[in-house]
């Protein structure tokens, strides 16, 4: 029932985003707000940016906000290693939302073997990007230690470190990758999703919230589902872009070409290339495979029952 959405009945919900709000990666949430999809389900959603996944998890678990979106890798390691009471209630993307940026001239990164003996830039030590790099190597049978990591901040000038050869490449979000390729023809992209199965984006709540606030969560997922369906239905993406621009303005959205290119890529990752499949549903097999991949690479403790970490019951019945 979407009637008693919020805990206090007013329908106010805070969604935590470890990504800044000015990115198309956040399109489902942005559109759900801008296009009134949350409102339709009785929710007044505040999108609240926080710095990084750990902080999103901390804030979620301290009960300030009931829902967030995280990388599946982070959720799995958190639950497996430190037993955090997190529950996945929906899977957004079926592919990786990260890209490795490299210089075509200097040192192309076409296959995992190209990483050996190189330095990869990651936004933070031990974070998602770092693990994805490890997974790419591990899945190819290469010792992850063969590639050095270097923490670098995301700034406009970071790519020049690649051009100078101080880094072989660095990890960015799909969004940033789009800007970079538009800025510089020398930018090449490596999609880790081609080899890594577990780098998916999932909606996460805490066990407490799930117990006490399932109505709100259900309404939230319904809003997201509506927004996603609208984008999938909007073949040209004109309507989506238009609606987003009524409320938001940032570089990638303001540029028609970049916006549509990014959205097309994103849409593909949400549907997994097959528009007939139900959106947001967490696929039991893919989930289990992701966990296996992580434990095999030594990135998560093995032996846990991963199947109990997600719950599809809050999704709108197709």
């Amino acid at each position, binding site marked *: 029932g979407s009637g008693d959405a919020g805990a206090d009945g007013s329908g106010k919900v805070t969604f935590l985003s470890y990504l*800044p709000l000015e990115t198309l990666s956040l399109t489902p949430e942005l559109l759900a707000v801008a296009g009134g999809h949350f409102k339709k389900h009785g929710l007044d959603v505040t999108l609240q940016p*926080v*710095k990084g996944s750990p902080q999103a998890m901390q804030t979620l678990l301290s009960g*300030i906000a009931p829902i967030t979106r995280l990388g599946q890798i982070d959720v799995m390691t958190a639950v497996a290693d430190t037993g955090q009471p997190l529950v996945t209630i929906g899977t957004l993307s079926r592919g990786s939302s990260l890209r490795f940026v490299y210089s075509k001239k200097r040192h192309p990164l076409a296959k995992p073997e190209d990483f050996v003996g190189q330095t990869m830039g990651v936004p933070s030590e031990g974070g998602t990007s770092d693990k994805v790099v490890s997974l790419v190597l591990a899945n190819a049978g290469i010792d992850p230690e063969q590639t050095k990591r270097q923490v670098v901040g995301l*700034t*406009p*000038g970071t790519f020049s470190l690649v051009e100078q050869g101080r880094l072989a490449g660095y990890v960015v979000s799909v969004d*940033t990758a789009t800007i970079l390729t538009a800025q510089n023809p020398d930018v090449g992209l490596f999609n880790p999703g081609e080899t890594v199965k577990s780098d998916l984006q999932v909606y996460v709540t805490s066990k407490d919230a799930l117990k006490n606030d399932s109505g709100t969560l259900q309404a939230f997922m319904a809003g997201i589902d509506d927004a996603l369906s609208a984008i999938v239905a909007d073949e040209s993406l004109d309507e989506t872009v238009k609606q987003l621009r009524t409320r938001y303005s940032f*570089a*990638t959205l303001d540029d028609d070409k970049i916006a549509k290119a990014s959205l097309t890529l994103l849409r593909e990752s949400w549907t997994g290339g097959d528009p007939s499949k139900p959106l947001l549903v967490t696929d039991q097999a893919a989930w289990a495979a992701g966990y296996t991949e992580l434990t095999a690479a030594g990135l998560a403790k093995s032996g846990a029952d991963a199947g109990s970490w997600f719950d599809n019951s809050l999704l709108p019945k197709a």
Partner: protein
Amino acid sequence: MTRERSRRLLPWLSTALILLAFFVAWDVFVRVTGVSELVLPPPLTVAESLVTVVTDPLTWQHAQVTAIETIGGFLIALVSGVAVGVVLGKVAWIERGLRPLIVASQVVPKVALIPLFVIWFGFGMTSKVVMSAMLAFFPIMLNVQLGVRSVEAGQREVMRSLNASRWQTFRHLELKSTMPYVFAGMEVGIVFAIIGTIVGEYLGGSEGLGYLVVRTLNELNAPALFAVIILLSVLGLLLYFAVHGLKRFFIPWHESVYGLQDGNR
């Protein structure tokens, strides 16, 4: 006459000249080293972007938020810094006891405290105000402590011989005598208050110039990033000079102010 006038103009002239020199050096640096525009855009590009940024009314809202947070944090730091500084400056055993906690509270990486701040103060401005106050507090507090301890023994004896209460001694002697130290602390404090606000906005939030920094970083828009930095610097300067102006108003009798007016030397 002319000497007098040139003496008054000199500082402004030197400010202008040094700023000019700085921008020229920046431009030359960019040209000579051929550093990527994305790492350090040339000043003219930044200037263009600055015009765009400045003409956007949203920018002013963000600047206002940052200013309010900074001033709020600074005022909290000032009041608490003076209060704590006075107490710690006078009561040695409290100082010894609290010092570890105070030093520790300073070196704690703020990023670890963010979730606590969010729980206590929410996502709004408060947590940035607190961050700002935390950074500004220490220099103010420590300078006040030094000031209270540096009160001249002879003057202190005058107050004692007048049977002055603690409060009177504070008001007529310690406060006045500590003022120059407080102001030095304040000048450091206001600058660190801005840093605190920016860090706070950087670590979480969707308002303020710190947020604009994050945003331009994410958009990989180097000219806009540097334009925001220039805005920030201007804000910093305004606040700094406000404090500095207060000093000339409040302690005209102190060597550090009086000595500069000179003419009698």
